[in-house]
């Protein structure tokens, strides 16, 4: 650089002088630390009461699923017909076996609710993982490569959207003799992946037109680099939002199918099974039905709230 010109000295000034506000990048808080969009979202999330309340509930539910013995004594299958037949709740015995009373076979309603969390949460979480993995990979490939793959995927998702969920699930599940948790998970995943695939496809199509993707192509980046470094991180936000919101829906779906008698069945302990059982004694002992139903609703609601909070934090339009 022979001529140290006006702009030179200016630029070095921009780079070097520490104080004036114009030199700082446009960070709002003035600290000027590195702030990724994810950390910004996390910053927002931590202040959202919706997020705090729902995550508290979710942490509790997950703990319940993993360590049920922390919450309830005894076994969910322990039946004492002689002493406990439809014994009404004792509201003051918090977290005791007789807290919410006993069911028609003399089993503790509370204990069964605690142990039922495992099946429901397992179904919810695993279905979400499978659906998100399958859906986003297929959606991403179809969205990125377009052409015949896109047409195929779009028509396929159209077909799946045409199948009423409950009817489809019932048809699939009734073909199995033994309906374990895994069978239910696979059935719901089979019907559920198309939603995520559509979301992923849409997100990828909008991201792939961005200039930074063009810039990476111009540099000669490989397709896998473009997909993994540029497209996926930017298409992830809507996928995560839809996944968390649908998690609650999958839990509800499990309960519904079990209630209808095509999902899980005894001896598996699950909320859906309990609700279905409780239905039989709705006149004499409504609490046997109401308590697990309330828990299902709270669970579904917490995941919906969680998803909502995540969406608020990730949606750039609200910024």
């Amino acid at each position, binding site marked *: 650089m022979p001529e140290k*010109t*006006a*702009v030179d000295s*200016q630029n070095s*000034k*921009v780079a070097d002088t520490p104080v*004036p*506000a*114009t*030199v*700082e990048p*446009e*960070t*709002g*808080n*003035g600290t000027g630390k590195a702030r990724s969009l994810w950390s910004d979202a996390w910053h*927002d999330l931590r202040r959202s009461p919706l997020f705090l309340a729902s995550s508290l509930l979710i942490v509790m539910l997950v703990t319940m699923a993993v360590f049920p013995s922390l919450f309830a004594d005894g076994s969910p299958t322990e039946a004492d017909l002689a002493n406990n037949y439809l014994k009404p709740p004792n509201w003051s015995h918090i977290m005791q076996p007789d807290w919410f009373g006993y069911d028609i076979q003399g089993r503790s309603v509370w204990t069964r609710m605690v142990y039922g969390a495992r099946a429901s949460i397992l179904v919810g979480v695993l279905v979400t993982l499978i659906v998100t993995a399958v859906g986003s990979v297929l959606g991403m490939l179809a969205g990125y490569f377009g052409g015949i793959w896109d047409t195929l995927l779009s028509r396929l998702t159209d077909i799946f959207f045409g199948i009423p969920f409950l009817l489809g699930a019932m048809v699939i599940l009734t073909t199995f003799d033994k309906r374990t948790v895994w069978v239910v998970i696979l059935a719901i995943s089979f019907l559920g992946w198309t939603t995520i695939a559509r979301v992923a496809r849409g997100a990828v199509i909008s991201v792939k037109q961005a200039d930074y993707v063009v810039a990476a192509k111009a540099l000669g980046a490989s397709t896998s680099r473009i997909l993994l470094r540029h497209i996926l991180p930017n298409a992830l936000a809507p996928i995560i939002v839809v996944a968390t919101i649908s998690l609650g829906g999958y839990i509800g779906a499990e309960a519904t199918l079990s209630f209808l008698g095509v999902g899980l069945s005894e001896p598996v302990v699950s909320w859906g099974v309990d609700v279905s059982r409780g239905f039989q004694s709705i006149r004499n002992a409504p609490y046997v039905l109401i308590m697990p139903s309330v828990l299902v609703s709270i669970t579904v609601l917490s995941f919906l709230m969680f998803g909502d909070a995540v969406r608020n934090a990730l949606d750039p339009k609200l*910024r």
Partner: protein
Amino acid sequence: MTLIDEAPMSPYQGDDPDSGEPLLEVRDLHVEFHTRDGVAKAVNGVNYSVKAGETLAVLGESGSGKSVTAQAIMGILDMPPGRITKGEILFRGQDMLKMSDEERRKLRGARIAMIFQDALSSLNPVYSVGYQLGEMFRVHLGLSKKDAKAKAIEMMDRVKIPAAAARVNDYPHQFSGGMRQRIMIAMALSLEPDLIIADEPTTALDVTVQAQVMDLLAELQREYHMGLMLITHDLGVVADVADKIAVMYAGRIVERAPVHELYKRPAHPYTKGLLDSIPRLDQKGQELYAIKGLPPNLTRIPSGCAFNPRCPMAQDICRTDIPALQPVTERDGGELVGRGSACHFWKETIHG
């Protein structure tokens, strides 16, 4: 701040004694936005006025507050997050900020109209342009559908849309960018308002179309004897059509002047810097003059004069005292009508 409070006694009062009352007068307007990063002070004490038949250009970069001021005048500011904390907006002497919503709605469109930068998103894609043009007449004047359509065709003719009668039932997307901007102008003019606010009306258009649209706007303004407030960042457009100019920076007016004066002898270092950074023929091969640094963050406007970190003339006083918009005079103290500069060193800038 106290210095700015005196601003209603601005140099604009009493200029041009032969013309009458100002149509629109903005006095000491303050607008702020509450964002997640704090309070952004978008407008910090703006004063200006427009008379009938006059073109005021409000010149500024993004974030200078020029569009926010216009939105506050039109009553289309998003509130919240926006908030008008102080000031008056007088239309024919009446404070619009004190009017009821109903009164303001009646003024809007009928007496004051606005033209936006993006004509495509300002027009409703599901209605034909004729219907949207006619709506003005149906709602405000109570014309029948048929009469409104006839009026719509007349307006389209006025803004020189070829084959208006044949195209009246077309939808916005069937028109080109320049034609859509003409339709916007036709809508703005349909009720013969006293004042038009045009926010970057030609920025989205191509150069050759831009010239057509600006010419049309200027011609119609003369014909209807309207006031025109042109909000833009383009020094070329301003030079072509404006009568007087208000230059905004960080929510304040830093300089005002009649158009010829401003280009000849800027009295504020920011204006001077902008004019100097235009590429000129004789500078070919040399470096362009560039204002150093970046426009300020509105949540953290520098103390004193907001321009001081970028200003080549800045002294200690510039970092502590906010300069008021003071009258600019000739070297010998002779009056310069309609000129003002918010710089501690305006004398050095204009005469030195």
